[in-house]
């Protein structure tokens, strides 16, 4: 519906993300109990609660908001997800530069930069059963959508991320804590892929 998005729009989207994380905390904890250590939902909730407390002074540009989110997540989440999501938001922030209004194009660029950041930090490949398996397809779908509409781009990304998260179920984990389980990691959705899908869905909802 929207061709561009101001700093207020980004702030509103981040609030939506925080609400989604809060709402799905237990689900993410339970997914992580199955094949990890049961903290993923709690970690993200702690992080986005801290983000919320800072959003009253978000800065002037979309990039400033994204950087604030990045540094807050890095300093409050911990675990694997903290630096990974932190890097994702940091790279997205750099990608959108000093723009005061984000376009569909810049959002596609931001998503791509986020993916590159996560891969650079975490060294996961597609199929390793990580958040990359949600974020990778999301970036591809966003790029392919070719739409000039932000909501359309984000909803294509969210849909692909959702499918990507579902598709982690049969996979055997090769990165992160779940990899210790070997074959026993198959049959469970990756919590980080699920949270990535939830985040993108929240962004898409905020944009529509």
């Amino acid at each position, binding site marked *: 519906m929207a061709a561009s998005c101001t700093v207020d729009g980004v702030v509103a989207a981040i609030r939506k993300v925080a609400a989604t994380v809060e709402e799905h905390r237990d689900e993410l904890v339970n997914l992580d*109990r199955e094949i990890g250590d049961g903290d993923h939902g709690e970690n993200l909730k702690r992080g986005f609660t801290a983000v919320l407390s800072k959003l009253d002074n978000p800065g002037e540009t979309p990039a400033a908001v994204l950087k604030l989110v990045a540094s807050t997540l890095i300093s409050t989440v911990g675990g694997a997800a903290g630096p990974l999501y932190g890097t994702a938001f940091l790279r997205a922030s750099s990608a959108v530069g000093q723009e005061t209004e984000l376009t569909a194009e810049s959002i596609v660029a931001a998503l791509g930069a986020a993916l590159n950041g996560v891969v650079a930090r975490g060294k996961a490949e597609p199929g390793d059963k990580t958040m990359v398996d949600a974020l990778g397809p999301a970036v591809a779908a966003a790029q392919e959508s070719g739409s000039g509409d932000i909501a359309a781009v984000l909803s294509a990304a969210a849909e692909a991320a959702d499918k990507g998260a579902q598709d982690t179920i049969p996979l055997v984990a090769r990165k992160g804590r779940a990899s210790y389980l070997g074959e026993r990691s198959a049959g469970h959705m990756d919590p980080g892929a699920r949270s990535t899908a939830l985040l993108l869905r929240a962004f898409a909802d905020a944009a529509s």
Partner: protein
Amino acid sequence: MKKIINDPSTVVAESLAGLAAAHADVLKVRTEPAVIYRADAPVTGKVAVISGGGSGHEPMHGGLVGLGMLDAACPGAVFTSPTPDQVQAAAELVDGGAGVLLIVKNYTGDVLNFETAAEFAEGDVRTVVIDDDVAVKDSLYTAGRRGVGGTVLLEKIVGGAAEGGYGLDEVEALARKVISQVRSMGVALTACTVPHVGEPSFVLADDEIEIGIGIHGEPGRQRVPHMPADQLVPALLEPILEDLPFQSGDRVLLFTNSMGGTPLIELYLAHGIAERLLAERGIVVQRRLVGPYVTSLEMQGMSLTLLKVDDEMLRWWDAPVRTAALRWGV
């Protein structure tokens, strides 16, 4: 869930307050971000040794802060690695001008957070990653082995050497040597309950145990029927012996660790069996450590750690240490 706590979200902070009150002669605690550090930090001219990790493994790491061991420990949320700003704050508090060694257990979260901190740090900061758990098959294509019981031995030996005047290069080299010579394996009889989860991290039947357990309530590699100690101890020891391998004539430090809920009467029983098995193979146990040092909250279970020692390691193992959990020679 029955725990002696008030609120899951304040457990770590409240526990740190108690630690600080109990051991003011040894350590101090700062908050936001949380760091436990030596009461007399920084020690000028000494290499600073910093570690950290999720809480819930006490006494590791906070109980290992003090003379002859860690200069600082960064406690994360329960079973969650600390954040980079904790590590940065720790480095600023304890850097004595001779460089900093970060000791990181090999978990993705710990590695990424310490790595991020190291990128931002000023001065000479080195990182070593310990990955002693033989339960996890090592591979370039996985997260690799986990850091478990060997961490305590590493921190004692390296901390002793740093206290004894080693430079950063020497400390780092010694750390890498210890890491290359230490192997561990654990078993859980019961799961543990993370406060913010409120339910056990997994469920074991009354006659089941989980071999190759991690220290974060992660399920292990294999669920098997419970067995007598005479079978269980070799089930932990054999994979360790084969891995390095440890051979007849080797001199070792044997560390028999409780996961928290296993009482000493059982732990010493297991230790005795391990000593006997090693003696039968001609492996010479020269030092031992027995007790709950690397725990998973109230989990019942144990781990064995074997370190192949040389004179250098023994010297710094024996050196004086004064922490909440380990103390001798002073």
